[in-house]
């Protein structure tokens, strides 16, 4: 299976969708990548909000990116700030929160900002893939609406 760690998605690579995984722990990025690649998704990684914003604005990524999976508690630019940026600048890219902290207030506030799902670690692979698949459908719709 091909790995995309170089910071950009391959435009002409056959894929079920392209996902940006934002988490400060390399271990988490690794297993989320493993989990999503099993469903045929291409994965890019970013270790904090700042890197995530850099990545989305890099080359053709903004055109190719379908879904963002984002942690909350991170250094530099944290998840809350990064998600606010994505929602403002890329409102059509669905965002899924994947966090270690079950916090109802945070979940409510995130869902209000248009986050499509709020998942608490540890999440089963199947559940994560389902969530990403639903987000992909939403992304399709956004594309169709043009």
């Amino acid at each position, binding site marked *: 299976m091909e790995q995309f760690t170089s910071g950009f998605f391959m435009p002409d690579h056959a894929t079920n969708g392209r996902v940006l995984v934002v988490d400060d*722990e390399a*271990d*988490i990025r*690794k*297993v*989320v990548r*493993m*989990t999503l690649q099993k469903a045929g998704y291409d994965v890019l990684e970013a270790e904090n909000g700042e890197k995530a914003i850099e990545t989305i604005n890099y080359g053709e990524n903004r055109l190719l990116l379908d879904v963002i999976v984002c942690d909350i*508690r*991170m*250094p*530099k630019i*944290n998840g809350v700030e990064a998600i606010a940026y994505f929602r403002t600048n890329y409102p059509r890219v669905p965002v899924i929160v994947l966090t*270690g*902290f*079950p*916090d109802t207030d945070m979940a409510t506030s995130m869902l209000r900002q248009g986050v499509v799902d709020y998942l*608490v*670690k*540890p*999440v*089963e*692979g199947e559940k994560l893939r389902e969530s990403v698949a639903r987000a992909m459908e939403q992304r399709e719709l956004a594309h169709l609406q043009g």
Partner: protein
Amino acid sequence: MQDLTDRPAIEKLAPTKVAILGAGRGGTALLDLLHQIPSIEIVGIMDRDPSAPGIQRAQDLHIPVTYRPDELVSNHGVNLLMDVTGDPAMERFIHAHKQPTTDVLSGSASRVLWELMRHEAKLQAELFHAEKLAGIGSFATGIAHDINNPLQLIMGLAENLVDETDLQTVHEQAHEIVEAVRRTSAICRDLTQYARKTTTRDDTMVCLSNRLNEALKIARYAVSFHDITVDKSYQEDARATGNPDEVLHMFVNLITNAVQAMAHGGGTLTLATEIFPDNVKVRIIDTGCGIKPDLLGRIFEPFFTTKEAGKGTGLGLYNVKTIVTKMHGRIDVESRVDGGTMFIITFPPVSPVSGDQS
């Protein structure tokens, strides 16, 4: 006025049935603290103003409230009245109506507490513990993060192993799972050790850099270290004589404060131990918001806090100072607003020979 100092019978204070008169800031602070101490039962709290902050707090804690002083003052079930109303009329009322066996402490909340502590060594230990436990309340986020992340790793790897056919990968991932479980179980071990009651064991030689490292681990649960650089400058054999649990507690308090001072914009936390011919010094330095000069003289007072209500007991630095004093040391602080703060703790040398560095 009955003076507690003249009463060796103060032993009877355990268990003590306490009534608090005055539910303003001071009364609320006393309430928050004393209700956590097992040897104290709060019979009730009184304020003539039903909107006083301590009234609501008492109701939350299921402690009886009243607006009439006589209900508590002449109550047979009360053996200590703590009057923090600051009202001379209240003092006269108390002495006219109280039961002869009831003790009275009056003044500011911090003075009242100080008085109580001076006579109750056991209470001091419980106060340490109560303050430590109050702090642990803020660990939830850190613990959840540090347990759920390895759990996610374990989940992902285990799911993969179900249909992994490459034997090499199976071995590697199984090994990673074992490591992740080890890391996770260390969290529980560290925290239960920290949360337990300070042992009353005799003083021993305490390795200061080891305690600082341990405290750093604990403090990571309490506060976020994102964007904070930790700079360690240790003389490894710096030691002091004291109780290792208390030294840990003290360092956790100082490190937590230092990191909180840098919550906006990050900075550098410096931990240093140094051996001098006639003493041993620990420095804890942050590059955070600093302390205003007019507040600097008050930071070691009990109940003094600049944190918002519910975020601090106001007893952290008071306990730090108590521990340092018990160890025959001293604590000094230097601070500049927006420049940072440095705490310097100076301990007497453990052994003049081994402590002598040329």
